């Protein structure tokens, strides 16, 4: 849709791009590699950056229809049923609270993106929201990013900032602009094919193309320093009628009791209670981070942070 509609009027895109892409992509060729060949003027990095920012409201010709479809789940943009699919909450750094990092499991891969909602401070015209983008360097992989502000007015008018890859950028808000988002796309120097010369199905063969080391699966973490706004933190579900664990975190229905015996059984019950509470609550609100229960981990789950090379 983005390629053919070309809503940002990029020089190489427009109607027929998709057709050309389908026709010219060779068997087993990575489509983005072909797209890069089809767009000699506009870099693939900028294309994915521009595409990412359209994901807030799906701002295409059919936006009205898409919004109408989403509205059946709730208020657009604040739709709790779909927000988790659209937006990513940032995690505040415990050692430097001025910075917020993307959760590693949500850090974009090549061509993918994350959108973060920023709640502007104050009201009225002239408010400035600034974001300082700092990516995790990975020179060997050519790590890079393309970020953009998305500003939406109370009337639904949508505007974008320039794209940028690192450092600070800002937007100045009008009085009726109270929704601000920042999109960040993974835009490395090279877009890698996952399974060269093979069916893309093989791309998911973990032993063959390990998640942790295959270039096409590399993630590009980053962190943001936000001023003039606060990154929005969403909850999933209402907790009415639920009882929270003393340490914070999970909730259970007040009627749920734990078998006071084996630890593993207790943990299992806990996991079930969390799931069912989330599924049955009318306004669906669960604790912010839904961490997997310990029982689901292998007995000797091992995660190394420092390799011995």
């Amino acid at each position: 849709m983005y390629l053919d509609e070309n809503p940002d009027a990029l020089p190489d895109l427009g109607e027929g791009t998709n057709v050309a892409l389908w026709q010219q992509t060779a068997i087993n060729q990575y489509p983005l590699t072909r797209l890069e060949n089809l767009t000699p003027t506009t870099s693939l990095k900028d294309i994915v950056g521009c595409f990412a920012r359209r994901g807030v409201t799906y701002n295409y010709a059919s936006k009205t229809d898409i919004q109408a479809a989403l509205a059946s789940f709730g208020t657009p943009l604040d739709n709790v049923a779909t927000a988790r699919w659209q937006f990513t909450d940032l995690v505040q750094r415990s050692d430097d609270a001025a910075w917020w990092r993307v959760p590693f499991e949500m850090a974009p891969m090549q061509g993918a993106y994350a959108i973060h909602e920023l709640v502007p401070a104050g009201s009225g015209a002239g408010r400035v929201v600034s974001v300082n983008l700092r990516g995790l360097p990975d020179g060997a992989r050519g790590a890079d990013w393309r970020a953009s502000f998305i500003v939406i007015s109370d009337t639904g008018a949508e505007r974008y900032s320039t794209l940028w890859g690192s450092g600070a950028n800002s937007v100045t808000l009008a009085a009726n602009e109270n929704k601000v988002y920042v999109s960040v796309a993974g835009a490395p120097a090279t877009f890698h094919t996952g399974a060269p010369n093979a069916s893309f199905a093989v791309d998911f063969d973990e032993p063959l193309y390990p998640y942790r080391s295959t270039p096409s699966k590399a993630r590009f973490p980053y962190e943001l320093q936000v001023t003039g706004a606060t990154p929005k933190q969403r909850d999933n579900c209402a907790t009415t009628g639920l009882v929270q664990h003393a340490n914070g975190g999970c909730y259970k229905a007040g009627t749920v009791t734990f078998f006071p015996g084996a630890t593993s059984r207790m943990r299992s019950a806990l996991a079930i209670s969390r799931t069912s509470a989330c599924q049955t609550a009318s306004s669906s609100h669960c604790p912010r981070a839904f961490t997997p229960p310990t029982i689901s981990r292998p007995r000797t789950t091992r995660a190394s942070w420092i390799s011995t090379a």
Partner: protein
Amino acid sequence: MTDGFTADSPVRVAADAKRSGFLTFDGAAQQVNLDRSVADLRDFTFTAWVKPLGGAANQAVLWLGASAAKRLYFTPDDGAGHAKFSIVNGGAEQTLTAPAALAPGLWSHVAITLDGTTGVLYVNGASVASGAIVLRAEQMLAANTASALQHNYLARSQDTLLPRFRGALDDVSFFATALSAADIAAMQPATSVSNAGTLYVDLRASDASAGTWINNGTIGNFARTGLPALVSNVLSTGVPGVQFNGTSQAYTGPNSVADLDAASDRSIEVWAYNPALAAEETTVSWAYRGTDSRNMAFNFGSNATWGAADVGWGTPPSAGAWHHLAYTHDGATTAKVYIDGALATTKTLAAALNTFATQPLNIACQRDSAGGTRSLYFSGYLNTVRVHGGVLTPAQIAANYSLGPVGTPASAAPTLAAIADQTFDYSGITPIALTVGDTDTALAAVTLHASSGNAALLPPANITFSGTAAARTAMLAPISGQYGIAALTFTASDGAATSARTFKATFLTPSETWRRQNFGSPANTGNAADTFDANGDGELNLLECATAQNPNAATTATPTLVRNGANLEFPYTRSLAALAVEWRDDLTTGVWSSAGVTEQILSDNGTVQTVRATLPAGPGPRFVRLRVVK
């Protein structure tokens, strides 16, 4: 669980004499931020290789927690000479305290296990402290809200609750279970060769001499063909090896035994160095060629075509390097080959092996017929050949690999050039030039740390080192206002061994510094004595020093007294000695007073100040003096 993130760029070191690929932390700003999930464990094990490098007590190697009263940490030295684990959740602190601190400069393997009832602290595989620990790691979690921050770190604590860690970390792991003592023991480096079944052949390069290669296995020695020679240091690798020319040199051993013939299970290990790979080069063999599945030959070559009973390397071991190569056959149809402790290929054979029986074992060649012509010689060096009558496990092979080639000399300790006793004039921070060396470890991996015999004057944390080459610098920052002598010990470490130098550092007081600079000696005697007037100008040395004068030059400290309205202004120069401006109106009666005296420091270079004292002018004549307060 997700990755940890480094902050402020801890330095990755390729290798020291003990470990490879680890991170070093400077004790100032470098750290690793860990994910929240590492504390979200009901049962818990933390393991790591830790190399502390001295400094302040109670450095945090590991910290998981929500607050000062809801956290766990491990420190290599609690200041009282103990490594310690501590956990608290708002109540009484629960601790595991080892009998000793971790040795500075050396790698130690640390493990902490918690099962909700008992905690155990292991150092180098041995339980050094255990006791009732009823708290769990998951209780260290902050509330799962947007505003609560979880402080999970390596090499630092929350805020500045504990000093940061100065040293190195490697192979840090968290487990969602309390590992057993056996589990922890299995993590320790092997110290002896693991065997499977009977060890029939155990040839070590250093045992090859006078035509016989002594077999430390059970079936007797090997005799040479041609003149393969022992090389004590193969191509400057520091590893000894028996050199074979690839055309005529070999060793012949006793005949194989039933436990190695036919379909019997077996394992072969070699440490080999092949400068250039030919298609098929034989390290060890028995039986003879010609019939599929009946010859037994373990090759270090690049051949890519294999018979039904053969196993390929996949990617062959590289030429020009020592490799540990292993082969196992399980007595049925599974054969595996390993390169440097890691499984390279597993193959299911069409049928079990059927090795010809009762044929001689050969080193560096095969036989074309029963006891017949030798062929497919090895061109390179063999350090070790072992033949086992059973199947080595992957863990055993990895452990044997970790032992390295036999006869390799132990890592040489780093050197630290002698450090003369030093006397330092008074100043803030003093540098000392040092020289380190190491014959077999990269200099960048040689680290320095310090201990002090006078921590009140110069604590170890106030000694910092810089440099990564042979030339290093130590910066000494004694406690402000403290002077005297400290016996300092600097230790150079390559991770496996250390060497130390002890010297005496004397920090002079300001007046001692003044005497040394002007009289060549800090001693309060002779011409340098406080009560002596070295230049005969009527001002004693004590006053000359206090007013920052040259006691050997004809100068005086007579300042100018200026009336400024209702005040007298009295500018003067002083060293860091204490001076008091006092006045009186009558030299025959009354006392000296400092009432109404104020001072403004006009300049300060760290050792000399110019000062303007202001005092009331008084109704009549007024005398003003400078008094040295010693």
